[in-house]
């Protein structure tokens, strides 16, 4: 589903990703963890080309997105993304946030887009908020709407960049619960997170990044119980 080969990314002289290779299979849920500044966000943002890779290749469902010929807009329709700070469109209602891209990009009919949107809002428990503006929602509600907005494009892959880091503690669970349901529904997911409990419970694999290098790639039980590298051991000692 996603294949990454020798991915390098530099900002000016600062090399942030130093040759990352990995693969994420259909239906797999992968947690990406590592210290601050290790390149987790950059890695995730290369997958939908919000950052332009400096070198290396990335295939999404067989399409090489580092190839200029590839229609990246088409690929992005199939890759949803959820941000730490939600980035809902503040001048649109919750419902409009969900229907905007399907209407504009997929040319879905209005009634179909709204039906899908209401179904999704139902699933994240926010159908009653459909006509509200985002500013009226709590952080947890905003993030659930943001997840629903990404799902409204009916993507096969979902990327999450620390979706709960900007939330008050009491709102973390409601968002993680939505993500858990999504994971169990067979969605292919790449999740940058500091929620170790969640990673351990939901992920099929853990990728541990440090200094722009993929240091470990293991199932959560193995990674959390027997981290091989000393860097992962140090990291886990600090966060657990």
């Amino acid at each position: 589903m996603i294949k990454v080969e020798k991915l390098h990314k530099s900002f000016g002289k600062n090399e942030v990703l130093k040759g990352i290779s990995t693969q994420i299979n259909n239906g797999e849920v992968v947690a990406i963890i590592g210290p601050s500044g290790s390149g987790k966000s950059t890695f995730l943002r290369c997958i939908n080309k919000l950052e332009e890779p400096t070198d290396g290749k990335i295939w999404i469902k067989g399409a090489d997105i580092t190839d200029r010929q590839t229609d990246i807009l088409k690929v992005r329709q199939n890759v949803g993304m959820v941000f730490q700070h939600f980035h809902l469109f503040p001048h649109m209602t919750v419902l409009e946030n969900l229907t905007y891209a399907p209407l504009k990009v997929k040319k879905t009919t209005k009634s179909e887009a709204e039906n899908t949107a209401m179904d999704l809002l139902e699933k994240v428990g926010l159908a009653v908020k459909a006509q509200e503006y985002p500013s009226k929602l709590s952080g947890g509600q905003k993030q659930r709407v943001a997840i629903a907005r990404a799902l409204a494009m009916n993507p096969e892959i979902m990327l999450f960049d620390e979706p709960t880091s900007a939330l008050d503690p009491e709102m973390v669970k409601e968002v993680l619960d939505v993500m858990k349901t999504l994971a169990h529904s067979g969605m292919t997911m790449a999740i940058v997170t500091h929620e170790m409990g969640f990673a351990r419970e939901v992920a099929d694999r853990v990728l541990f990044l440090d200094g722009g290098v993929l240091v470990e790639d293991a199932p959560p039980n193995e990674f959390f119980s027997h981290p091989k590298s000393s860097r992962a051991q140090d990291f886990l000692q600090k966060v657990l």
Partner: protein
Amino acid sequence: MNLDFTSVLPSLPFILQGLGVTLQIVCLAGILGFLLGIILSLCKISKIKLLNWLANAYTSVFRGTPLILQLMIIYFGSPQVLGFQIEGVTAAIIGFALNSAAYISEIIRAGIQAIDKGQQEAAMALGVPYRPTMVNIILPQAMKNILPALMNEFITLTKESALVTTIGVMDVMRRAYQVGANQYQFMEPLLLAGIIYYILVTILTFLGKLVEGRLRSND
């Protein structure tokens, strides 16, 4: 000082007839300047260096020279450049539109850059192309923030429209001046013109506040 409006008041309708021209210039130049300002601002934030340079050079020239000079070049220069004399009103609309576009583009550029980058990234991540992202996501939010500055620019335009007097356009200002010249009595007609401009600007300010309030009530 003794002011005597009795001999000037009969000329009030004559002066007021200039409102049509003044409003025509202000509205058309305002709309054209706004549209051109959007295009220029998009050039300024573009990744294409040549567009940046062109838009910045444009702004620099129109801000760095007197407006009255720009008007005169367009009006008096037209026979040499175009081969025919354009009308004063046309020259005025073009001149004010080009000039205000320079200022408006700066306002819009700042407004766009003040919008969280995450808005554009969220749209990109959904597969939305550049143009609808700008038109539906970024510009509506930017407009809300820059409305007061835009309104200011519009008010400035209204007042400076009096400059068209110098290229023979029969606006409020020129008519007031003519009445003065006919009656050897300038103070009263000029004061009348002043009152007309003041009322115009007050109405504009009020409309601006109204629109602003509407937009704010959305969030």
